[in-house]
């Protein structure tokens, strides 16, 4: 390859909003459910039914717009996008083309070099999701499930400001965290509550004009996105290098085969015949409504990170792990407020919590224990009521069942034994029963004491105070 190429990437990100009901009717948005049970005349496109806008959708869209520095369209509307497909019961999707709710925003991402880069947001618009087609191989027919039909979405359209897969991932992470912090969506790529389509073109370094772009669909994980970007970049460069042209088209990524294939070209592009939906009235957003939503905005991650450093003095790495989930950050702050030991709380979250999450294949959002019980556990260890081995055992119970550590320790008799008399007689018996180890120790193999400590802890079912066990053993061995 003689020439140097630059990759130009823009993203269309669909986010499913966390409203309880659908965008234009009162049906539940709950995931799952038997087919066509979360439906009504509106979301199944029955003749004569009419849409009524869910206000919460507008509020979430504005909240995301404000968090991404967008201008809010105060006199907007919905448009119909007309196309025939059986998952779309009206054969038009209610979306926004002419006056999207948010425009002209940006988010800052950290670049690999450690600097900041602004990624422009062209617009954010609201729309409804489609139903799901189920192809029944047995009977050779296709069925439609409208449970997802009418679930609210926002589409966040970026400017073509990204230049690498790393920047794309950083941008997506940034959006995901902003939206999760807002509580507007759980943004799970694998479950489809966040979906990204990648628009990519390449051009020679220094060129002013953009190259011809393709749009890549079916990207279900950050890894798939990174792989698809690399693959598409190479495919386009190869085409240009061999004197061919890139065709403007939509491609579908197959992450198993690590290969994409063309779905449709620009020539097949449909004319969606967009026009304002006459069944819906203009969306008028007052200054007061924007101010109210602004006032309710949470502290976002960047602000939180800064504050944690000042307020809690914990390491930067801890801060980045804890704030990577709003739920975990909330848990951290609430626990510290009770027990006032930031570093200890951080340790429990960073080490044991993360380990158990990984073990159970869970997301930080699924952490289910209360700050009160983690604080109690920390107090028990600080007071030496339990030793660290017991503490880990108790924590597993806290993690799994959110048990009260005080009660649990009491009921299971897990308190550390630091009654010297009782310990001494147990240790004397162990010393007597293990002459070989005593001999070794006396012969200078000081490590032999480890075995005797282990035997003592075993005998005491782990509840002995390790410092005291050591002290007594040394006294006995060196007597």
């Amino acid at each position: 390859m003689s020439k140097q190429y630059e990759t130009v990437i823009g993203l269309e990100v669909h986010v499913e909003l966390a409203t309880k009901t659908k965008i234009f009717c009162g049906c539940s948005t709950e995931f799952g459910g038997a087919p066509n049970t979360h439906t009504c005349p509106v979301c199944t496109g029955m003749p004569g039914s009419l849409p009524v806008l869910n206000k919460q959708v507008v509020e979430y869209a504005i909240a995301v717009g404000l968090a991404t520095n967008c201008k809010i369209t105060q006199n907007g509307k919905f448009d119909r996008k007309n196309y025939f497909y059986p998952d779309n019961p009206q054969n038009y999707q209610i979306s926004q083309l002419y006056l999207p709710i948010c425009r002209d925003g940006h988010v800052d991402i950290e670049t690999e070099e450690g600097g900041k880069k602004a990624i422009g947001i062209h617009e954010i618009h609201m729309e409804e999701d489609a139903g799901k087609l189920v192809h029944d191989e047995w009977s050779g027919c296709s069925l439609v499930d409208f449970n997802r039909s009418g679930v609210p979405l926002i589409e966040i359209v970026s400017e073509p400001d990204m230049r690498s897969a790393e920047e794309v991932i950083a941008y997506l992470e940034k959006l995901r965290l902003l939206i999760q912090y807002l509580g507007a969506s759980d943004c799970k790529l694998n479950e489809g509550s966040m979906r990204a389509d990648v628009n990519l073109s390449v051009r020679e370094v220094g060129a002013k004009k953009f190259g011809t772009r393709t749009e890549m669909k079916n990207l279900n994980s950050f890894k798939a996105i990174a792989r698809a970007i690399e693959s598409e970049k190479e495919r386009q460069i190869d085409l240009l290098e061999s004197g061919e042209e890139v065709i403007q088209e939509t491609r579908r990524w197959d992450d198993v085969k690590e290969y994409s294939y063309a779905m449709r070209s620009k020539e097949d592009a449909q004319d969606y015949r967009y026009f304002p939906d006459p069944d819906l009235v203009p969306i008028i957003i007052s200054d007061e409504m924007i101010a109210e939503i602004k006032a309710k905005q949470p502290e976002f991650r960047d602000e939180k990170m800064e504050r944690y450093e000042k307020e809690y003095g914990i390491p930067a790495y801890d801060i980045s792990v804890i704030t990577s989930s709003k739920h975990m950050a909330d848990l951290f702050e609430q626990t510290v407020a009770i027990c006032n030991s930031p570093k200890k709380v951080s340790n429990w979250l960073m080490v044991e919590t993360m380990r158990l999450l990984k073990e159970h294949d869970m997301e930080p959002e699924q952490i289910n224990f209360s700050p009160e019980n983690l604080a109690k556990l920390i107090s028990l260890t600080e007071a030496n009521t339990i030793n660290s081995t017991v503490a880990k055992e108790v924590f597993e119970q806290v993690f799994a069942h959110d048990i009260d550590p005080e009660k649990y320790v009491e009921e299971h008799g897990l308190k550390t034994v630091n009654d010297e008399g009782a310990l001494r007689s147990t240790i004397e018996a162990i010393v007597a029963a293990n002459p070989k180890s005593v001999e070794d120790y006396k012969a200078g193999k000081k490590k032999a004491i480890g075995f005797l400590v282990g035997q003592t802890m075993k005998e005491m079912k782990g509840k002995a105070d390790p410092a005291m066990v050591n002290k007594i053993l040394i006294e006995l061995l060196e007597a």
Partner: protein
Amino acid sequence: MDLLELTAVALGQKIQKKETSAVEATQAVLNQIDKVEGTVHSYVTVDQEGAIKKAKQVQEKIEAGQLTGPLAGVPVAIKDNMCTEGMRTTCSSKILENFVPTYTAEAVLNLEKAGAVIIGKTNMDEFAMGSTTETSAYGITTNPWNKEHVPGGSSGGSCAAVAANECFYALGSDTGGSIRQPSSFCGVTGIKPTYGTVSRYGLIAYGSSLDQIGPVAKDVTDCATILNTIASYDKKDSTSYQRESYDFTKALVDDVKGMKIGIPKGYFGEGLDSEVSNAVMAAAKELEKKGAILEEFDLGLVEYAIPAYYVIADAEASSNLSRFDGVKYGYRAEDYKGLHHMYKKTRSEGFGPEVKRRIMLGSFVLSSGYYDAYYLKALRTKALIKQEFDKAFAKYDMILGPAAPTTAPKVGASLADPIKMYLGDIYTISVNLAGLPGISVPCGMDSKGLPIGLQLIGDCFQENKILQAAYAFEQTRAYKSPFDK
């Protein structure tokens, strides 16, 4: 007096006074249907059993004192584009031949709560597209005054049913004159309320921004009473408007003293039948005699209403009707190869020629590259037409004119020349574009013995003004029935 000759309100009073019953009235209507339906064909569906059953239930409630309203027990016919739970709703189209809705339209629900007995569903132009009720997939309706003439459209079945005593009143819908024009042709009274007054929930849409449900009846009192019942603020319809008052019957006062009535000169020019013109002007004089002040004026942009209307209504229709695809309900073609062929075949076989024409026209004006030149321009024209009316209503309480340029044309005379048929909507269409209320009341007969309608147009939410003037005019002449002869 024959029960069937009563107005809806008069019948309601008799039922309350126990001089007759809901069951008796329903039976009388069903007998009349047996007698005349073979000629008139107002109905697509007559629900004999359901109607009698309902009448019995309603009568019990009336006797228990639970239903005391003016329409309790009165049989009604519903245009076949309003959803009725469990009762076939076809829009007079093959594509919905077996469609049975799972819910009832809000306006119909309001009637049911008031104790209405639904007799059946009336014939119409397919999807309300037409002015003659000849585009129905289930045969034409004839004019009860003369079976060789059309009843008008698209609510031709509703208006013919009222005129032929096949019900005591009916609901119609009006997108470009579909209540007022057939009311005029059939010699009955019909009102299109201000857009947003009656919920559109459950009305199968033609042109969503123009469609409004309204009453068709024998007189103004009935219309006002029905409107009291069907009008409501409905959260299920985003375009529903919370009005200050839903009392239309308080307008039933025989007094027009000092009312300023504007008469657009342009309405009385070329194309208007002289007999219609004379009858309408004679009606105006009657109002003048009662103290109204008449003034001729120039209403601007009249000639742009029809093109603007057909662009907007057809654009909306092309999208509204796309849900009829053979996937979920209604007609599906039998032999097809794959999804797109199924769509094409189903829609080619399921829709009639007028509906196809309008879907194509509407799709064209929304296409990329034509949207600005047609659709946007039509929307701007609509806004300008509204401004012209605003100017007029700054000076006048209402506007008076004909409902249609002629009396009912002969069966088969209209469809061959659709442009001419579209031009027949000249007096009614701009009212929908501006969202205004308009009423048609009978004001005479032509030499062929066909009824002529007078149209009064009010400003938004000023139904009561036009109802009052129409009521006052009505006092000057008796109701004429085709059976009077």
